[in-house]
């Protein structure tokens, strides 16, 4: 049987090479992403299902401020993916201080995203939106799907910021290496990618 040509021999000394040439931690992160994608697919399917089933669906968002706010959030999250890539590249070039700074920038952008999102939430709650109430008079599932799906995403962003912080601290003390940063980056890019589904489906489809 031909041996895989990928540089897999470095993965585990004394082991058969992994068919994907990735270390276990990275493989596990990919598997986590597969599972998490199924989770988001399930809630977005549920959203589509109840949206189609409810003819009295109301569209809560005005272009100003909601959509503009959402676009700014999108740009911020995309930028944070870029800074994450910069951090990984710096770590792979063994430039620890630079990498930590880029991680800091990523955390700051993530926190900014969360802050803008919470501001939006608070404004909507102020208007009377609840998980079970629609102030515009249509089906209450508008609020239910909005808060639960964006809440699930927000939970991912906030835990991502915390994890990046933990990784950055450990990396500065040389307890972690570039591999840890790369694996964390995978997660962060995935959270970014999910937003690319959530934003159009939850926001853009619901413009008044």
């Amino acid at each position, binding site marked *: 049987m031909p041996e895989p040509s990928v540089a897999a021999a470095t993965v585990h000394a004394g*082991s058969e090479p992994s068919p994907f040439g990735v270390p276990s931690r990275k493989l596990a992160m990919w598997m986590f992403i597969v*599972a998490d994608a199924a989770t988001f697919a*399930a809630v977005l399917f549920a959203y589509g299902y109840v949206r189609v089933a409810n003819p009295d669906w109301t569209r809560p968002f005005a272009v100003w401020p909601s959509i503009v706010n959402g676009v700014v959030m999108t740009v911020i999250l995309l930028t944070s993916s870029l800074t994450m890539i910069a951090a990984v590249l710096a770590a792979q070039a063994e430039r620890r201080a630079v990498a930590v700074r880029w991680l800091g920038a990523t955390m700051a952008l993530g926190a900014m995203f969360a802050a803008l999102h919470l501001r939006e939430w608070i404004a909507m709650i102020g208007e009377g939106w609840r998980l*079970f109430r629609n102030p515009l008079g249509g089906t209450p599932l508008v609020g239910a799907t909005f808060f639960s799906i964006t809440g699930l995403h927000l939970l991912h962003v906030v835990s991502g910021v915390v994890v990046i912080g933990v990784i950055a601290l450990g990396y500065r003390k040389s307890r972690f290496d570039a591999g840890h940063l790369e694996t964390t980056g995978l997660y962060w890019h995935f959270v970014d990618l999910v937003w690319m589904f959530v934003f159009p489906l939850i926001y853009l489809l619901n413009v008044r």
Partner: protein
Amino acid sequence: MTHTTAHPPAHAQRQSFLRKHVFSVDHKVIGRQYLDLALVAVVTGMVLSWLMRFHLGWPDTPVPLLGKLAPTGAAGGVMTPEYYLELMTMHGTIMVFFVLTTAPFAGFGNYFLPIHVGAEDMAFPRINMMSFWVTLLAFLVLVAAFFVGDGPPLSGWTAYAPLSAVGKDAGPGQGSGQTLWAISIGIFCIAQLLGSLNFIATTLDLRTKGMSLARLPYATWAWFVTAVIALVAFAVLLPACILLILDRVAGTSFFIPGGLVISDRLQPHMGGSPLLWQHLFWFFGHPEVYVAILPGFGIISQILPVFARKPLLGPRVFIACLVAIAFLSYTVWGHHMFLSGMNPFSATLFSVPTLVITIPAAIITLLWIGTVYGARLRLTSASLFALGFVSVFVSGGISGFFLAQPSTDIYLHGTYFVVAHFHFVMGVAAMFGIFAGTYFWFPKMFGRMMSETLGKWHFWLTFIGVYCIFMPMHYLGLAGNVRRYSAFTDDYLQPLIPLHRFITIAALFTGAVQLIFLFNLIRSRLRGPKAADNPWEATTLEWSTSSPPPHDNFGGRRPTVAYGPNEYGVAGPAGRDYVMQAAAQ
């Protein structure tokens, strides 16, 4: 690019009692903990089924002590219809999640997958330990439903909405009991996700030198494929449970339609869909059936060649069929919903892959039969249960053809025909896989042999018993006996009561027979004759190490593999008819 190694940490040999036996990161201890949990769960689930069966046969006869245990649900020892449904819900939930998923997949998989691939431990031992403790937490939360408010939920193991979603108004147990159910299953999903990650990473990354994917033992192939199925299936059940909890405690209406009046109260919900719950649940639920049965496939495929002294027929076909089943298992969930008011065109769409998935399953069955065909079979408890597995799987599978057709399913789905089908194909077959695995691996796990005499009594009485229980249920179903009903005393089903009594007697008898197994387990553990390293003359790596294996599985030296797992009936070294995987080339 620098890749770090994620070697399992070498465990210190000297550890405190707690670290070694309770909070252990050793995959073998964790595997045994899973099996112990499953044993507690299966006894609980079986006692619940006894109570149900007794009530079905003798609806008015009080059960001793039951009146004291459940003063509201069974005052004076005669259970109410609601209490029957509570028992049914808990029986199904405990059996599916904490027995059929926990024992063959998490239990045996944890113990033997790392040894099969020649690793010292799982890829992530701490996550592995966590997944067991999270599973235990889920079990405790579920059992707590017996002791809160008005008892456990009554919406079945499928927790159909809106019954499961509306809360207290829907009946006893639909208050805090149902909430605990949803929390428990949500927690269980997290445990399974962690476990599946570990299984996949270990299989792909921790294989010892020479253990190519083609040389993986078949049980490990099955656990690996099962982990891939479980990874996506439980990831969908988790958000479904969260949405259900939101419906129950936060006032949302995902699964509750508007205008619903329950217990004379208009429910404050609108816009949701009960069918949405069924879609999400069965998208998990059907793959879950394969999570329960595929480890059995692997265990049987590993055991039959050992006792037939012949290689497994078509090993590559077997693996291809496993993968095909895994893929198809995601496309058939709608066949649970033919009766739910789905569009009839959808029913056709789901019927076709349901019939297609029988093809790889049938091929695998033929491979087993072809393997034992013409063999000088060594009849042991393990091989008898393996053959019994094939028998009950075929019996349960054949009724599946009738249920895969929407036209016949619409008549049969609400009847005992379905009860017979899934108990055979999923419940009893998976249990036989667990029994076969236990008799096969007990010597390796505990260093002592089980009693073969008791094992064979256990097999024959159980085998006859389960056919006496479940075969007549097909007839009940065809006669129109609806399922999920507590008693049939006053209607057209009266003439079927004697048959129900026969089934009840068979169930009590078969349950009592399991005491032989329990006795055998305990006695062999303490007094069984010492087991050799390779008592069955098998090839896979667990038989190359001592019984029980040392802490790091191979005594500090990982084996090198030069042969596949299927080298039976060959001219091996020292006049043997087999070559072990770790044999020198």
